[in-house]
């Protein structure tokens, strides 16, 4: 089992090494990185390239570790008991399996994606330590132990909103997806839009990386935003010439709404454009 990237996902060499190490050693891998660098995509692509089932567990601030294992529906059972339902006699009828349980039961080695683990409470990762380490857990209600038939490939993403506990980190591989350099970016775009015009890409890239360099910008545009923007440029059939426009009056790139996502940034950008326009006029 080896991950080599797919036709729709460009994986850098270091990412491949990290993923393959996690697959071989059957340990979880934590993927961090700027938003929009393809952290969640990675799990889907790994599953695709290994032809494995993907089980996703999206974490919210209210998610508890127990929910990933199983939940015991006491209220339904209580109601059934009052109605005299036959089901009530077997407690198993009221235990609903969580994502981890599903993953452990799978016949073929699945990919388990625990998405945005940092959204949950600080204690959340610690509560899963043993379960992810041993790949087994105990169901108190029925007294059975659920053990993984095939240790799933666990991919955990984090947006860095909370620090993860050391004990948890020690058991995982770690990869930080850095922002792609222009060459990698070109490959990524190529994968998404194979028939995009070369000159359009070049000009769009220049603007994109320029915007990322603007000092004081609150939210830097990311890969996924670049891809959306290119899509807009293509559907609108914007000519590369317009992007190359050095006329200071048109310094703000067309359809910039796809790249700049908050009004302060748009405002800042407009102000910078205004200043550079004034400077240019002074020169003239």
């Amino acid at each position, binding site marked *: 089992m080896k991950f080599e990237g797919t036709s729709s996902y460009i994986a850098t060499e270091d990412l491949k090494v*990290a993923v393959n190490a996690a697959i*071989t050693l059957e340990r979880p891998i*934590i993927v961090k990185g700027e938003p929009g660098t393809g952290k969640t995509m990675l799990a889907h692509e790994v599953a695709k390239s290994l032809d494995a089932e993907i089980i996703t567990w999206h974490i919210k601030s209210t998610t508890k570790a127990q929910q990933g294992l199983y939940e015991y529906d006491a*209220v339904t059972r209580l109601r059934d008991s009052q109605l005299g339902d036959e089901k009530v006699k077997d407690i198993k009828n009221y235990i609903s399996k969580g994502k981890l349980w599903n993953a452990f039961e799978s016949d073929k080695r699945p990919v388990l994606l625990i998405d945005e683990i940092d959204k949950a409470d600080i204690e959340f990762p610690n509560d899963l330590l043993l379960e992810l380490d041993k790949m087994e857990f105990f169901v108190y209600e029925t007294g059975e132990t659920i053990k993984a038939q095939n240790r799933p490939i666990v991919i955990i993403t984090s947006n860095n909103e909370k620090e*993860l506990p050391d004990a948890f980190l*020690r058991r995982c*591989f*770690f990869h*930080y997806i850095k922002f792609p350099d222009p060459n990698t970016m070109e490959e990524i775009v190529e994968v998404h839009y194979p028939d995009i015009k070369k000159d359009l890409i070049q000009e769009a890239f220049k603007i994109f990386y320029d915007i990322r360099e603007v000092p004081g910008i609150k939210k830097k545009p990311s890969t996924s935003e670049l891809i959306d923007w290119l899509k807009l440029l293509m559907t609108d059939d914007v000519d590369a010439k317009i992007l190359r426009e050095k006329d200071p009056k048109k310094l703000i790139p067309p359809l910039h709404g796809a790249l700049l996502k908050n009004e302060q940034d748009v405002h800042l950008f407009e102000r910078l454009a205004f200043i550079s326009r004034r400077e240019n006029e002074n020169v003239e």
Partner: protein
Amino acid sequence: MFINFFFDLKQASLPVSLKEYLMLMEAMNKRVVDSFNVNDFYYLSRSALVKDERYLDKFDRVFGHSFKGLENPEGETTKEIPEEWLKLMGQKYLTDEEKKMIESLGGWDKLMETLKQRLEEQKKRHQGGSKWIGTGGTSPFGAYGYNPEGIRIGQKEGKNKKAVKVWDKREFSNLDGDVELGTRNIKIALRRLRKFAREGAETELDLDNTIKSTAHKGYIDVKMMPERRNKIKVLLFFDVGGSMDAHVKICEELFSAARTEFKHMEYFYYHNCLYDAVWKDNNRRYNDNIKTWDVLHTYPSDYKVIFVGDAEMSPYEITYPGGSVEFWNEESGETWLTRMLNVYENAIWLNPIPERYWDRIASTSIIKQIFSDRMFPLTIEGIDQAMRELNK
């Protein structure tokens, strides 16, 4: 060899543990990567040993240091090259013609062999020229020069992007925890300071309690409980004006991060040291100030107090009545600070000046003493430690 590397990492105070080292060994054992490829080994060890992007840069540096001289597959040339030879003494800019003129010396093996020979022959520091090892030349060995098949020795960044080792690129340098401060990072650091509690209106269904109570009474008895909230309350004091002007940006960032992070937060401004009044609006500080006594009486002692300031002033401004540079203070700054600390048990001082200078500034030492050493640098690391301290 790997053990040494591991201890080098530990020495550079990277948080690596035995478990991670064993994990790396296991991965090597299972041939996750081709063990003769240094790049792959670098990727693998990075992924196994570093668990936080803050440490990636440090890791790169240690890796570069530990495996210096082993950068090539053969790993033969381990002879130390004196640092001074390679010190940057100037840069030679070659024209395209010159670049074309330099042909490769043929093959990796031959290059290594020649390098070894040269190392033995050469005894002095060298610069320029096209044979010896040194800086700025066109010989295939050395730094800051140009040769299409060159081997770079001891150069931080490949100038012509030819013989670049990945870890030497240090792409993660701006993620180092000691350096970068952005509001997002501050927010994360501030998040250490959390204490969840259920207080206030009962709005959530307490399922367990409901079931228990229902079973006990024999009829459905719904129980409610309040929502879980962060109940941390914070008082922030910012030093403004004078020497603090240089640190405005970082204080702004801290302020905006703290405002979104803490529900119960009050802020005040002071100048240099705390005296009998603080204010909330810098434009109206003389008309609209707030007596420090009022602050002490208004906010209960479970508030956590954070002072932000460079603590750089004349010692008299702290220790003597009338020491303030702006007005006649009846009581010394020290008295006021002590009063504050007597009310609020959890108080810390954040200082934007790097820690290494603190001992040389008399007033900083005095304040640090008043705060019984609870002074932290205004960096991510520092805030992190400060928040741990406040949580105690």
